[in-house]
């Protein structure tokens, strides 16, 4: 998982001439601990904006401070495990879903993975950028800004807030993926 920083930097320069470098630079062992970059940013600079939590199925969800809206994406760990994403099936706009419902899918060469709704919610908008550039999921999976790899923006009600409370925070998720690896 942690090799993703290195991978990401190298990907930007991926050209035939960089292959030797790529092979050389690749570490045998992945450093065992690291913190998702964007989550770290969220906590350190804008603590009042929103809180990010994670599911065991590797989705993340931000809940706004007023607990009425949120953003959904897949974790950096998941993006790394999937490999190069070539197709993203986006959720249906306007659709109301329960936690755990399949709302879309991410496809890489090696596998297809469903995106499940982390909480009960209603999809208000989807990230059309991913239709054009599915690889954004690999570059910035946990970025919820314009140009980021977020999947959908959602409206949240009380049921959704309750679901949210049961999810893992960044610290717990890190421990969870550490034990999975």
């Amino acid at each position, binding site marked *: 998982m942690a090799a993703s920083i290195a991978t990401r930097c190298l990907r930007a320069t991926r050209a035939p001439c960089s292959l030797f470098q790529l*092979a*050389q630079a690749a570490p045998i062992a992945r450093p065992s601990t690291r913190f998702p970059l964007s989550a770290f940013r969220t906590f350190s600079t804008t603590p009042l904006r929103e809180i990010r939590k994670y599911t065991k199925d590797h989705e993340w969800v931000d809940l706004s401070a007023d607990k009425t809206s949120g953003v959904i994406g897949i974790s950096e760990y*998941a993006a790394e495990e999937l490999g190069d994403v*070539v197709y993203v099936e986006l959720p249906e706009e306007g659709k109301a879903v329960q936690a755990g419902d399949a709302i879309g899918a991410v*496809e890489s*060469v*090696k596998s297809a*993975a469903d995106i499940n709704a982390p909480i009960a919610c209603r999809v208000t908008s989807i990230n059309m950028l991913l239709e054009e550039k599915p690889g954004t999921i690999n570059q910035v999976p946990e970025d919820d800004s314009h140009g980021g790899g977020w999947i959908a923006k959602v409206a949240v009600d009380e049921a959704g807030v309750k679901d949210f409370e049961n999810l893992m925070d960044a610290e717990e998720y890190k421990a969870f993926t550490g034990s999975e690896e």
Partner: protein
Amino acid sequence: MKLVRALQRGRKAASSLQSQPARSIALLSRPLSAAAASPGSAVAQYQQQSPRTALAPSSLSSKASRRHGSSLASDEPLKQTPLYDLHLAHGAKMVPFGGFQMPVQYSSLSVSASHHFTRSHASLFDVGHMVQHRFSGPGAAAFLERITPASLGPLPVRSSTLSTLLWPGTGGIVDDTIITKLADDAFYVVTNAACRDKDLKYLGEQLAEWTKSNNSENAKLEHEVLDGWGLVALQGPLSEEILSSILVAPEESKLRELYFGQCRPVMVKTGGGELSQPILVSRGGYTGEDGFEISIPPADTVAVTEALLESAGPEKLQFAGLGARDSLRLEAGMCLYGHDLDDTTTPVEGALSWVIGKDRRDPASKNPFHGAEVILPQLTPKSKGGAGVSRRRVGLVVEGAPAREGAEIVDSAGQKIGVVTSGCPSPTLGKNIAMGYVADGSHKAGTELEVVVRGRKRKAVVTKMPFVPSKYWKGTAPA
């Protein structure tokens, strides 16, 4: 999101090695010959029979059936190939496959980067999980012609052919296999790891049956499983250059004359300047690229593999795992048994009619292959008075989402006419490719169909395979 679960990887896995008591299970080496190799006797050495290790049909049969009775996944520990430690040292992510722990990818390259690297440079695949067999004796050819539709008489010595083990009665495919003629009375055969138990039981039964009904001296044969032997596939345009660089002269200059489908025993220089025992180099592979499959005696597997990696260097040669192997073989239009072929599929349905040798098509043959009574009439379409087939394996190019195994194929009227058996986004083409079975009549290239992915229909067009043109070395085309 459900991610594919992987086993431990990298250093963490390496550190837990000592605590795995089961790891030597696959490494009970049974060398064909324990004697050191002497140059010049390479062929003889490879073909030498060691009675000590030969498995009699009866013992094989009982062993196989015992294995067959136990559940593959749960109570048998996963086996390891001789290259297990080397994989970990290269940052492999190991997954269970065919009863073995096998590398699915390595830390240096993503699956698609590894795929591209194979087509532009060269990759080394450990395929030591596959089952290597040796059939020898005056009856070997006739026995193999009973259980497969291969034409082994006309096959030149030191040549290989793809074939299929067949069930009697139905003509269903037990497994697909490569048969190599080492001599008129000696054959080297490779079958799939995932079918190991089934194949060994099948072969045991077939050998017993053969021996019972053919008791002349001319029908005798022995079957041996080369457990513990290494098998690696060197694939990609740089393969010949890489292999040449470690060959012991004078073979060095002759690789250019080893064409697709041919093989040759050679010796190579390993790390410390030592010579390897004879290894069998077969030109071909499972990627559609030029390349070699290399069978290596147990004691030399690691040394030969390291020699290849070290002499080429990482800029020319990288390890590649099951992930890239699957997308490469799909682009090359090749079947994966258990997915694209199974016990209920005949070669004609599987679009493999070409494996049925020209001289094997006589219904009155004295040594008909299993299922010939079903398969031969299928070769002639219904429209021409034959039995034909009701379904055929085809290639598909799918729009939008990739269609994976199990996706339904429907015609323009929305009627289900088949199912996808393999599919992925093609890294080379940037399109989604798949293979599957469709009703006869919908199998022609250009036919527009639809596949259902996550409840939605996506356009699919029947497309000729291979999807990516093969680059086998068959010599220079005549001017």
